[in-house]
């Protein structure tokens, strides 16, 4: 295998292929697009969390000048009006019932956006209110009303081996894993940490809100432009809604203004497509950020967890019960539950494990993927308890972790691929970077935490490269460029393999009518899977050209010597384009190389790779106000090989910054059935002034992944450990243990006050907020 230093294009921080467009304002996002004869849609949303729809009168709206059509439950005709890749429980517009405040109940299609907006006031809806079910305990209470009282079909991309769905009451999905004998292990353990933790509801805040343009044309062909992360899953849902063959549906994804999981899976596309179908016009629906808050959020999680060690500091058992508040529709919460169940184990050898997870329907905004996919929710409790146990053992937290981390080749889960990373090495590197051994200034605390995520999702990834007779190369890829830089990285791989300049490679996609199937763009899979597919497609193209070269040279293929970018026979050398031109005797002809990756061979074992997160922080606590700020932040991207080092580091910092947001201030707050802070005036995300004063971004490049040149994915791992890092560092400096994120100034201040009061009354260390 080529090593760093051998590469011409890969492993270099080349200019981004989308860079000039993005700094000149010419990059086109779906929100910037218009189609000829395009109409606009606006959505009427439910004011109630849980109610029966008695009647909808939209006759006045339909008569308003400029209004083309109105879409309600009465207008869906013989469409199959439910979608969802996991559970087809989500109606494209409310049918019979509303299940959360903000649920679309009608759409007006008009000549312009303002007319559509004004016409919403003309729609009268009569509701019969039910008692809203607003938290997990109410949803699971005996006799609780079922939020979904009808059966549903399984979605096409459940991600579970078992395709059947099993909704029990308000439990959308259960996941259970177990090995060893947990009960026995806890009985004989030397020390046990036990507690309840809470990770909040959060909003990803992709700066471009959800947007789609649908064109259901007169020939019954549907084209949709969307800000979707997974165009092929959207295509499937749309084909099902319109009972169409897959090739009748074309989903095109231009540039996307942020995703972080929130644009995974189908969102508004079925509604917009139905508006076009109903009106006979291309229709655009541009949500506002306030509406995006009411479209998807991250699952909050209540985690009851206990972890046991023996007297020597070896982990012997972990048991947890996790409840996710999934909101009104399944979306990707079944997979969030499944992944969290696996990921709460951490990168550790634990001989006895039992984890039980429940994704629970409530009458709140539907929850779905959020960067890290369940890992952030469970790394916070898991890594908090690692520090609690280290204290009981009187061991240094880093040494305690090192004693239990799985080494490369060791298994942390009996049915999974062994660890393909140097986690102890990563931890040592981050600890050394932060100088954990140095004395701390007053009010400062330090912590290093880690996570291991079964990443990559299901490996079905198909790619094509076109090699042109003029020496240019196009990569046709169904991976979405959502800012992570995949269009640059995939072009680098093609340039490396084909021996052409990076600037001569063009990325085409995502467009389901042109590019081959790629299951999804998420779970950090693109570099690993699409990168490898592009590499294999290039090599397949080269194999074809070599056959042509043998004919052109008039020699046997074995007599040709392959050199980067061409072949040599004796003194004569021809480049790939020269061979094509000789072969076709015409300019302009291009050939296609292709690769079809599936779950087979070295991609048989799951996960595709382990995504490791190791983050260290040093915090500074203002004990007067309770405000925490980051003095130092250190990340390490254990990515096998960084195809583009600068962008890889930037992914880690972006992920850690999102982790800091949830760690310190991000939280969606419900008051009754109403989301109280669903605007950017009230929902606080990290700003320039929140940046750590010292930032260290490291890479581990051991070429130990199944991706191209040993690469593995990145960009999610660094989100996961940050909450626990902050909680542990706070405990270290102040002695208060907070088990609920975000760790706001108010919570810190209250905890410090309680500690002072309890110290005054001469009791032991305060453990606050253990009960949400």
């Amino acid at each position: 295998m080529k090593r760093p230093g051998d590469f011409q294009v890969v492993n270099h921080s080349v200019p981004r292929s989308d860079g000039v467009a993005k700094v000149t304002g010419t990059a086109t996002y779906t929100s910037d697009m218009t189609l000829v004869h395009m109409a606009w849609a606006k959505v009427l949303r439910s004011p109630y969390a849980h109610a029966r729809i008695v009647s909808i009168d939209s006759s006045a709206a339909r008569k308003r000048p400029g209004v083309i059509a109105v879409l309600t439950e009465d207008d869906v005709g013989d469409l199959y009006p439910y979608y969802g890749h996991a559970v087809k429980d989500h109606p494209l517009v409310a049918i019979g019932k509303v299940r959360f405040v903000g649920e679309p109940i009608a759409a007006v299609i008009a000549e312009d956006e303002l007319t559509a907006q004004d016409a919403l006031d003309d729609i009268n809806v009569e509701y019969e209110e039910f008692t809203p079910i607003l938290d997990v305990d109410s949803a699971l209470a005996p006799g609780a009303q079922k939020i979904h009282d009808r059966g549903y079909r399984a979605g096409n991309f459940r991600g579970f081996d078992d395709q059947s769905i099993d909704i029990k009451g308000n439990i959308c999905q259960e996941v259970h894993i177990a090995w060893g004998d947990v009960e026995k292990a806890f009985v004989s353990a030397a020390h046990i940490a036990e507690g309840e933790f809470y990770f909040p509801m959060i909003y990803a805040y992709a700066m471009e809100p959800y947007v789609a343009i649908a064109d259901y044309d007169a020939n019954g062909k549907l084209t949709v432009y969307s800000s979707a992360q997974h165009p092929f899953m959207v295509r499937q849902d749309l084909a099902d809604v319109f009972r169409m063959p897959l090739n009748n549906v074309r989903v095109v994804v231009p540039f996307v203004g942020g995703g972080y999981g929130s644009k995974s899976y189908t969102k508004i596309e079925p509604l917009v497509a139905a508006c076009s179908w109903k009106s006979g016009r291309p229709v655009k629906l541009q949500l506002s950020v306030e509406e995006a808050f009411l479209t998807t959020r991250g699952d909050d999680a209540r985690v009851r967890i206990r972890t046991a060690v023996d007297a020597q500091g070896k982990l012997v058992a972990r048991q947890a019960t996790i409840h996710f508040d999934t909101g009104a529709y399944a979306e990707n919460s079944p997979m969030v539950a499944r992944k969290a169940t696996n990921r709460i184990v951490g990168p550790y050898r634990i001989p006895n494990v039992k984890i039980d997870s429940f994704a629970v329907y409530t009458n709140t905004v539907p929850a779905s993927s959020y960067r890290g996919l369940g890992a952030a929710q469970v790394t916070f409790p898991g890594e908090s308890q690692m520090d609690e146990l280290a204290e009981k053992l009187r061991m240094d937290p880093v040494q305690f972790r090192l004693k239990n981390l799985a080494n490369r080749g060791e298994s942390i889960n009996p049915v999974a691929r062994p660890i393909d990373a140097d986690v102890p090495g990563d931890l040592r590197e981050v600890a050394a970077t932060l100088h954990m051994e140095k004395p701390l200034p007053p009010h400062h605390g330090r912590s290093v935490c880690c996570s291991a995520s079964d990443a990559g999702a299901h490996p079905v990834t198909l790619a094509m490269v076109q090699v042109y007779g003029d020496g240019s190369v196009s990569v046709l890829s169904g991976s979405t460029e959502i800012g992570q830089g995949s269009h640059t990285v995939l072009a680098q791989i093609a340039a490396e393999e084909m021996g052409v300049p990076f600037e001569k490679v063009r990325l085409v996609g995502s467009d389901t009518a042109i590019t081959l199937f790629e299951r999804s763009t998420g779970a950090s899979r693109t570099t690993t899977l699409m990168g490898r597919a592009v590499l294999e497609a290039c090599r397949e193209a080269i194999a074809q050209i070599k056959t042509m070269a043998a004919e052109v040279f008039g020699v046997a293929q074995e007599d040709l010597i392959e050199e980067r970018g061409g072949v040599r026979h004796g003194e004569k050398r021809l480049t790939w384009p020269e061979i094509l031109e000789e072969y076709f005797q015409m300019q302009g002809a291009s050939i296609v190389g292709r690769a079809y990756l599936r779950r087979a061979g070295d991609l048989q074992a799951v996960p595709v790779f382990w995504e490791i997160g190791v983050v260290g922080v040093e915090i500074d606590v203002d004990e007067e106000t309770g405000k925490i700020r980051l003095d130092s932040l250190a990340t390490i991207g254990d990515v096998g090989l960084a195809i583009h080092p600068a962008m890889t580091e930037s992914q880690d910092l972006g992920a850690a910054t999102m982790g800091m947001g949830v760690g310190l201030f991000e939280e969606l707050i419900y008051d009754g059935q109403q989301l109280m802070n669903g605007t950017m005036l009230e929902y606080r995300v990290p700003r320039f002034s929140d940046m750590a004063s010292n930032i260290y971004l490291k890479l581990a490049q051991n070429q130990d992944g199944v991706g191209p040149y040993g690469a593995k994915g990145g960009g999610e791992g660094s989100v996961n450990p940050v909450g626990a890092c902050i909680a542990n560092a706070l405990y270290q400096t102040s002695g208060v243990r907070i088990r609920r994120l975000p760790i706001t100034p108010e919570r810190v201040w209250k905890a410090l006050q309680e500690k002072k009061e309890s110290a005054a009354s001469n009791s032991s260390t305060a453990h606050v907020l253990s009960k949400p």
Partner: protein
Amino acid sequence: MKIAFELNGASVELEIEGRETLAEMLRARCRLTGVKLSCEAQVCGACTVLVNGLPVSACTFLAYETRGKHVVTIEGLAESTGKLHPLQQAFLDNFAFQCGFCTPGMILAAKALLDEKPHPTHEEIIAYMDGNLCRCTGYLAIVKAIQQVAAGAAGNGHGSGDGAGKR
């Protein structure tokens, strides 16, 4: 109503509605979609444009208020030859964006800062830029890009990848 103003160096006369925001006018009437709309509440800075050299949130700034003034958008920053503004080049050199949605507003806010104060301190950069949100990068690369221009050092456009540590 009819208004006249200067847009990216050219004189413009437009018929607009009184309630129209600057962002609506620029995006819909002038086809300048580099003006991005996100929070629409003066929080995120994505819609930042320059009016008489000062950064404003075009989402909440009424279009008619630009009458008689100079408006600069991201589309007006590069030279007519296509040569990028030093800030645009610095954002490229430092990989100071990912999805790019915040980038036009970010670059224009940075321009206003450097026009006012060509050599800001680190603290001054943070304080001035704090009204522009980026959800992708964690901000470090943006600060470096601004510092690069402030230092007058033009980048070569090619990172070497030397930052990549191998164990």
